[in-house]
């Protein structure tokens, strides 16, 4: 079974600064996908970024980028130029390449302070 671990229950950052959220996972699969989802107080889970395991290049989406270390099974999220609207729970998630189920970590509550 796959497991996803987020070791930081809470983090805070000043507006305009950079913050990195950690995620490690455990799997014996070779084909899989990794995701970061954001859940603001509205409760809606919003996809921030995704990474295909077969791709060596780290994914980027505007201010969001990942550091994907396949051998170490690490998948951290870097948020640059943090904005107040980035305040939310962030979940790291795993999906096997042949499947459709997401396995989520416990989440990291990020607070961006003005």
């Amino acid at each position, binding site marked *: 079974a796959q497991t996803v671990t987020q070791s930081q229950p809470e983090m805070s950052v000043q507006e305009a600064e950079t913050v990195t959220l950690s995620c490690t996972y455990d799997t014996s699969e070779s084909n899989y*996908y990794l995701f970061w*989802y954001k859940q603001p107080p*509205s*409760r*809606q*889970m*919003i*996809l921030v970024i*995704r990474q*295909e395991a077969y791709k060596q290049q780290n994914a980027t989406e505007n201010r969001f980028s990942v550091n994907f270390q396949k051998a170490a099974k690490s998948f951290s999220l870097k948020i640059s130029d943090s904005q107040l609207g980035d305040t939310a729970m962030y*979940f790291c998630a795993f*999906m096997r*390449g*042949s*499947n*459709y*189920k*997401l*396995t*989520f*970590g*416990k*989440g990291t509550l990020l607070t961006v302070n003005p």
Partner: protein
Amino acid sequence: GAGVSQSPSNKVTEKGKDVELRCDPISGHTALYWYRQSLGQGLEFLIYFQGNSAPDKSGLPSDRFSAERTGGSVSTLTIQRTQQEDSAVYLCASSLVGRPAPGNTIYFGEGSWLTVV
């Protein structure tokens, strides 16, 4: 619709009562998922529908839980004889297809917050 729509947004029910939660997926999405988000267990997969195929019910926690998807669109999650441990946010999601593929994003609704008292 523009997004995944869920109702009710919040529901308070008495222990032992039955509840129905509704999900209206994005138009054209063949895959539909239900997840449960609770303080103790985090986010858990419940059930998955893909087109006309038999659903994957492997995540349903007990036989008090059931779900159906009518006409390949709207889905209803039913919890019978509710217990306090059923209190959670029930999230519905949909995607074009039920497997990872370029451009195949899983979109979530805002959830139904169930409180059993």
